[in-house]
């Protein structure tokens, strides 16, 4: 690991799609998936990125690992610029940032043993081979709570939770600075989720890896994260450390999200103040004027239609983009 203080520094990143003429010449609308966001993640820190489908969180994740080029802005991983990097530079950068996804079954090659899968990045990078490779794979398997002899098995011989462990082992093989976890426990059964969350916490304690944790489950976010960022239609609307965020949410969208997530306790859940949003997420190809949230916001006034609120700091350290919060 390099010793740069922040493992991730994002500045004013925007990602747009389409807009050029299609096959039949007609030019489609521009989809503005990400619209100028800034984010730092410190070494050993876990930041949660929260938002609903279509808010741009997956596009942002893809941009961070260099799978998607932004139209503007800068993304630095431990000091190295991702945007505009050539193939060789990207190769070097990617060893410092890895990604795991929701469905482990789709992330593993069914025809490779898990030993081969976990060892592949090590061979590609020339880190280890032969017996050293075997030992490294065995260590990785043990780190994620599997046994060395599991190296010879195929993905179908494992349960969903075990497969996610394999995926995590592969992601950690090159000792990355940053691991992007895109809904890592959403596809798992409830009893297995806690195992994987405990594992992620333990691995962070041991290796100091940072996590960008993309999730819609606020219970999990509250449990595992140091800081929370809420995204709506391509922009951050609220950003705060965990305690501030959950004790005193400010943006009306954040409040709506919190009231929408059902608590696993009938007394709490049924007594809860409801704040149910009307309507649906507008299309990112036709983002509302002013504050993008004004079409669904119970607090919206005239200024919200005209002026886009900037993310501004509040007394308790939170940063919120709202004229009325």
């Amino acid at each position, binding site marked *: 690991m390099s010793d740069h203080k922040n493992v991730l520094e994002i500045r004013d990143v925007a990602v747009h799609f389409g807009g050029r003429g299609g096959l039949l010449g007609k030019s489609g609308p521009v989809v503005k998936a990400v619209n100028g966001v800034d984010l730092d993640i410190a070494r050993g820190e876990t930041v949660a990125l929260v938002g*609903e*489908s279509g808010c741009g969180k997956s596009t942002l994740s893809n941009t961070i690992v260099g799978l998607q080029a932004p139209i503007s802005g800068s993304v630095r991983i431990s000091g190295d610029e991702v945007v505009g990097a050539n193939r060789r530079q990207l190769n070097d950068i990617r060893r410092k940032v890895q990604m795991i996804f929701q469905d482990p079954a789709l992330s593993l090659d069914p025809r490779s043993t898990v030993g081969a899968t976990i060892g592949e990045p090590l061979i590609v990078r020339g880190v280890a081979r032969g017996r050293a490779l075997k030992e490294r794979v065995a260590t990785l398997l043990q780190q994620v709570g599997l046994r060395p002899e599991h190296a010879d098995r195929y993905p179908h011989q494992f*349960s*969903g*939770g*075990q497969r996610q462990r394999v995926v995590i082992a592969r992601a950690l093989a090159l000792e990355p600075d940053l691991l992007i976890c895109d809904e890592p426990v959403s596809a798992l*059964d*409830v*009893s*297995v*989720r*806690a*195992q994987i*969350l*405990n594992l992620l*916490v333990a691995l962070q304690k041991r290796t100091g890896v940072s996590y960008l944790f993309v999730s*819609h489950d606020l*219970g*999990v976010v*509250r*449990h*595992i*994260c*140091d800081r929370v960022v809420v995204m709506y239609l391509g922009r951050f609307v609220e950003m705060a450390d*965990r305690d501030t965020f959950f004790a005193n949410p400010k943006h009306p969208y954040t409040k*709506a*999200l919190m*009231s*929408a*997530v*059902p*608590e*696993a*306790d*009938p*007394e*709490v*859940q*049924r007594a809860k103040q*409801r704040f*149910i*949003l009307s309507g*649906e*997420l507008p299309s990112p190809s036709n983002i509302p004027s002013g504050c993008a949230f004004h079409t669904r916001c119970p607090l919206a006034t005239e200024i919200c239609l005209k002026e886009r609120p900037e993310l501004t700091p509040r007394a308790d350290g939170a940063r919120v983009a709202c004229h009325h919060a």
Partner: protein
Amino acid sequence: MDAANPLLSVDRLTIDIGGANVVDDISFTVAPGKVMALVGESGCGKSLTSYAMLGLLPPAAIRTAGRIMLENTDLAALSERQFRKARGKDISIIFQEPSASLDPLTTVGSQIAEAYRVHHGVSKAEAYEKARQMLVDVGIPDPTRRLDQYPFELSGGMCQRIMISIALICGPRVLVADEPTTALDVTIQAQILDLMKKLVADRGTAIVLITHDMGVVADIADDVAVMYAGRIAEIAPVHDLFRQPKHPYTALLLASVPKLDDAPKADLATIEGTVPTPNEFGVGCRFTERCPLATDKCRTEQPPLFDCGGGHRSACWHIDRLAEIHEVAA
């Protein structure tokens, strides 16, 4: 539970696949206007139980015992022809993925109207008018325009409202909802759950809700059956189940969900191991291998559902030792 006056009662239902009892001796009842949740992890048999109620079991799954009484009719004994008359009219189902359940080539209006015409044989115009009213009831703005749209023109939440319209247009007394909000975003999930609560209250429809989400259960259910490996582990009124679980599986499941007052990044309670596959089912309690309370008796003898009072029943030999679970979990 309103045991005296159930609308639907599933009685000792047993379903085999390849000789294994994947649904084993399941009984529960639902009263009108109530929500009964079947909760469990993948492979617990909750979906097969719901398909059996609709006569939709896959060919490999065979009902070997039990009845499914909708008032005085045994649904399990209906022929496919008789079932065609019952489905939609007496009992309906909505699924997890609304866009996969709708015909992409037909307008949503004609899909809703079709359901009504099949059972009532009315004119197209009359059925469309019914469909339009139904869209108003499920909270879809601008219903006249929506009727002429195709599923791809609607969002996931909107499609689920269309599915609910199709399921309810003939006024069935029972609605089976199989993970109805799992594929939806949380703010949309909240809208759909509220809609379901309203429909239950207004129409007195009984709902059998299949879910794995304890939050959804806490929000909407009146009674809960926790299923594990094809059997009911515990069944209780919702408040009792959350306040005082009487089965180690339920207790551990509830403890493994992160809570408001947990210390951040503290170790969560876990259930070691994984759910057994049907060919691993033993003769005793199927939770034995993962249970911190397990003894030899659990391995060799299947526990019956013991009555704990107040409609609360649990299939565990060691209900008196449950305090130990709370220590493990804490």
